[in-house]
């Protein structure tokens, strides 16, 4: 798993979500990936301006998680993929997840807790 660079836009959202959830960067990236994978219609690469923030995709998955992430993505894109494409698709998931999170936060009032929102939405 190689290093990937987040878009500038993505980086901005990442910073804001970190503040909103009081969480560290890697954890927010993992959340964003989960959101992107489960909530995007399709996963597709979007051409955006890269930021300076580069991170290894191993932040998202290590060990058995890599296998899981790979097949979750294959399931999502309904086609077989190679390693190179996997990294790019992970990044796409994150970017899309961050967008979704940004949208969600925007819908909340100042009094709302995004964490509680996430819990209510995802924890059954």
């Amino acid at each position: 798993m190689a290093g990937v660079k987040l878009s500038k836009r993505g980086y901005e959202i990442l910073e804001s979500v970190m503040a909103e959830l009081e969480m560290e960067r890697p954890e927010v990236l993992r959340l964003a990936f989960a959101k992107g994978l489960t909530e995007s219609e399709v996963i597709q690469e979007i051409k955006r301006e890269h930021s300076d923030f580069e991170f290894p995709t191993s932040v998202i998955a290590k060990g058995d998680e890599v296998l899981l992430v790979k097949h979750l993505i294959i399931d999502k894109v309904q086609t077989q993929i190679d390693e190179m494409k996997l990294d790019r698709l992970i990044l796409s998931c994150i970017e899309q997840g961050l967008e979704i999170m940004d949208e969600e936060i925007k819908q909340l009032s100042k009094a709302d807790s995004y964490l509680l929102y996430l819990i209510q939405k995802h924890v059954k």
Partner: protein
Amino acid sequence: MIFEYIRFKNYRPYYGEQTMYFRDKNEEQSSSSIHKKNIILIGGLNGHGKTSLINSIFICFYGRRKFKQKEYDELMRNAVNKKHLSEGGKEGSIELAFTDETGSYAIEVTFNHRELKETRRVYELNGELKKVREIATTEQAFYEFVDQRIPMDVSQFFIFDAEKIRDLVGEQEQSETIRAIQRVVSLELYNQLLKDLDHISRELTNDLKKQVKDEDIKDLFGRLEEINEKLDRFENDEKQVNEQLVALSEEELALQRERRQMISSSSATKQQLNRWIGEYEQKLKHHKDFLKKFKEKDLQQLILLPAIRDLKQKLKREKEYLEAKYREELQFVDYDNFIVKLLEVKTDPPLTEKQKIHLKMNGREIWARLNNIQRNVLKEQVQVIHDVSNKDYQTLINYPEARSRDIKSEIEQMKKAEEMLRRYQSQLEDAPDEIDTSEIDEKIKMCNRRLGELRAAKKQLYTLIRKLRDERSRIQSEITKKEQEKNKLGPIEQKIDLTNRLRDAIQEFIDRVTLLKAKQLKLAVEAIIEQMFRKNEFGKVEFHPEKFTLKIYDQEGKEVDLMSRSEGEKQLIALAMIWALTKVSETQIPFVIDTPLARLDSIHRSNLVNYYFTKLSDQVIILSTDTEITQDFYEELSPFIKKSYLLTFDEQEKYTKIEEGYFFKKVTDPWLA
């Protein structure tokens, strides 16, 4: 005791097996002689085996104890008959049989020439003098058995060389002789009793030293009383301390209660608020930690959970599809092989590709129908996109799913804790000052200090009391032990007194018995001398009651110097002493006398035979040479002879033969003639 027989097997000059019987039971019963036949006469020239015979008896009874080391070694070296050795033999033996009131026995001593070793066996004999069984005995036990019958130092009076016995006259003052004489007259036994009593007395005196003195016990009781006093004092102290402790503890408890009431009567104090704040801070931290962990790990997994479950389902479906497809394909293997071969067949005109596919597809339908192949296994077409190995499939199917926690209530509790914390913090700002409990605190402090002191004192007392109790039980057990010892030893003084009195009584008894025995010996010696010597030769006889020595006076009352008397006279005096001893001791032991008559004149010789040999014992074995006993003398002796033997050394055969008879022909008993 009576000797039954002696049997030699290749021992010294006796070649082969030769037996000398000393009595014949059958003959004894049928004998009608008025004479007591108690003499066994054994004749033999010098060097023909007489000494070997006497030594054989000593060897059987006493073994090497009776001999000097050198003497016995020499004896061992020459024990086996030379003729037998030259024939390749290596063992020689002696067997001596005897009967006493306890039964008949045979002692067998075997000599091994090569190993210079002797083996001793003791057998019990039956009425026919046949060996019944071997008596299992140790050497020591055997010697005790013999010594009970003929003690070794006494044997010199029963088995002796008459030539040498006269030395007894000169040696009669020697302590060994005196002891032997005393032994014969049983005085030794009494002296032993005296020694035993002395030993007992000495042991009792030692016990006296060990004996527990009443003062010791008194001292111990004194010490016990001291300890008890101390214990009473300390226990009293302890009781007081305990009472004080109880009182003080109650007081302290009351003070504490009062203090608590004081505090609780006022509103929450700063102190309490601080404590509560602390508690809620702790709770909040706990909730926050939980939430942090949830955010870091579980949240992402929970978001992904539907996707993961979906993936698992799809993987299962794909696998099922692939397996079903594989199973179906397996059923068309034969058809596929067939159709491929069929379509390879050239036709005219040739089939187009379309026709071929058409044929293939239709043929498949027909094949399925004909072979009853269920083709509806694959209900739907599944697109296989997950190319996974079996291992990966298992990993993914078994991937753990995040558990949904009651995170909402956790957050609620956290919020509540935050709220409470805020409330208490604002209260803290407005809280009144602490209630002044310093006065009561001081009291409690004092109380606690005093309690501490009392507890220390109690501990100290406890240690002291425990030590004293230990000491007390130690002394008590010591007293018990000493009293037990005292009881066990009993009245020692009384025992010593009794022993001493018994000892005195025994001493007196011995003194009197000694006197009596001396008197008896004197009378016996007098009688014998009177019979054996010529009339008026000697006057009175005196026997020293302690030394057991003989003094003889002449007619004028002058002591006769025994040493200056002739050898023959000395011999007679010695024999007189032996006979006297035999009479006084009342023992029944066979006499074995070697060459008894050599130095005697005819009168003394006649007296010796008539008054001595015939009366001495039930069995008198006389060994003599041909010159000692002349024809007429032999005739005089013959009515008393039980058996006679002649030891003859065969110059040609080179060994001694034992033959019945004597140098002269036996004269028939005149009374029976």
